């Protein structure tokens, strides 16, 4: 029988607490959960036959539910959905081989939660505003557009150049919003990972690792950002297990 691993949990304080919590929980398809312990780290696992495993959306949600419940009580590292090992012995060997990396990562996320911040916009309105601004006050660094001649290729270059300048304006605007976001959140000593222009409407997609006790301050900070950029829509979600802050590859 193989084992599916849900999370790696720090047990340096209370060895009995995890076992007690797991006794009242169920894994995918209602199977029992149990802990495989190595020193001060436990892997939360359930028995699983590969043949009966269905990698569907509902299974993934069940898997995430287990991690979510555990994260409310323990410092943990979520495992990737579908992490399966051959036996308890194999899991213990894996914990032993990766002990230092796991401990380092657990230390980083100790008493912290992940929060997500997405910034949406109506891209057409935003582009129109930027276009208007750029026409009213061209960038000082931008050289004048090349003289328009009556040639098809020159017209093509002029059209592309306008698009290029607008795109540069958009990137610079998004960078300024990101600077404001990080400026606000650095005060809360967050660790952040930010991607920009994920889609035309999702201009910023960020995740932050933050002390659990600072949740209200984070909400307040995002409220301030929303007031500063009324044309954008800030969405803050969480608290989540630290999915995006596990930085090691299982050896």
């Amino acid at each position, binding site marked *: 029988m193989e084992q599916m691993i849900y999370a790696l949990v720090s047990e340096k304080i209370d060895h009995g607490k995890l076992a007690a919590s797991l006794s009242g929980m169920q894994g995918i398809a209602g199977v029992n959960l149990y802990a495989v312990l190595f020193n001060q780290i436990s892997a939360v696992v359930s028995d699983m036959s590969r043949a009966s495993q269905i990698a569907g959306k509902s299974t993934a949600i069940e898997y995430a539910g287990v991690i979510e419940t555990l994260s409310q009580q323990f410092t943990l590292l979520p495992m990737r959905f579908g992490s399966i090992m051959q036996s308890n012995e194999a899991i213990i060997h894996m914990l032993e081989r990766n002990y230092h990396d796991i401990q380092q990562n657990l230390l980083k996320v100790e008493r912290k939660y992940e929060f997500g911040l997405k910034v949406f916009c109506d891209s057409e309105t935003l582009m129109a505003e930027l276009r208007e601004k750029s026409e009213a006050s061209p960038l000082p660094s931008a050289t004048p557009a090349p003289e328009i001649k009556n040639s098809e290729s020159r017209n093509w270059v002029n059209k*592309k150049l306008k698009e290029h300048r607008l795109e540069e304006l958009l990137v610079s605007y998004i960078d300024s919003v990101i600077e404001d976001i990080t400026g606000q959140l650095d005060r809360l000593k967050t660790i952040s990972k930010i991607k920009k222009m994920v889609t035309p*409407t999702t201009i910023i997609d960020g995740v932050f690792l933050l002390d659990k006790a600072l949740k209200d301050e984070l909400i307040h900070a995002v409220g301030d950002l929303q007031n500063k950029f009324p044309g954008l829509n800030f*969405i*803050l979600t969480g608290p989540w297990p630290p999915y995006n802050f596990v930085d090691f590859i299982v050896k």
Partner: protein
Amino acid sequence: MSENKILFNTGSFDGLSEEIGNLTTNAEESRLKLTPDNADSGLAKLVLTLVELIRKLVEKQAMRRVDGGSLTDDEIERLGETLMKLEMKMEELKKHFNLTDRDLNINLGPLGDLM
């Protein structure tokens, strides 16, 4: 995503669900799906995606140089003609293989979309 996970949102929950739905749909639609049945069109999609990526990078770099003022009028003229022809050729190829711009913007998972 359940409503109790949303800590701050000035828009509607429905609007947010729609945005999240779009993110998921974009990711699923733009995956490269190669199977034995569609090997030809799948390969065409893959090759054209790479060609389009390189073409766009070249175009971007060219516009930077034009904007920087380091090219002469003649150079801009020739560059424009070349890039315009490349764009037209690319349009022809997309039509031939029945592909759209969206098809060529493949999803790279955690890295986001290619273009």
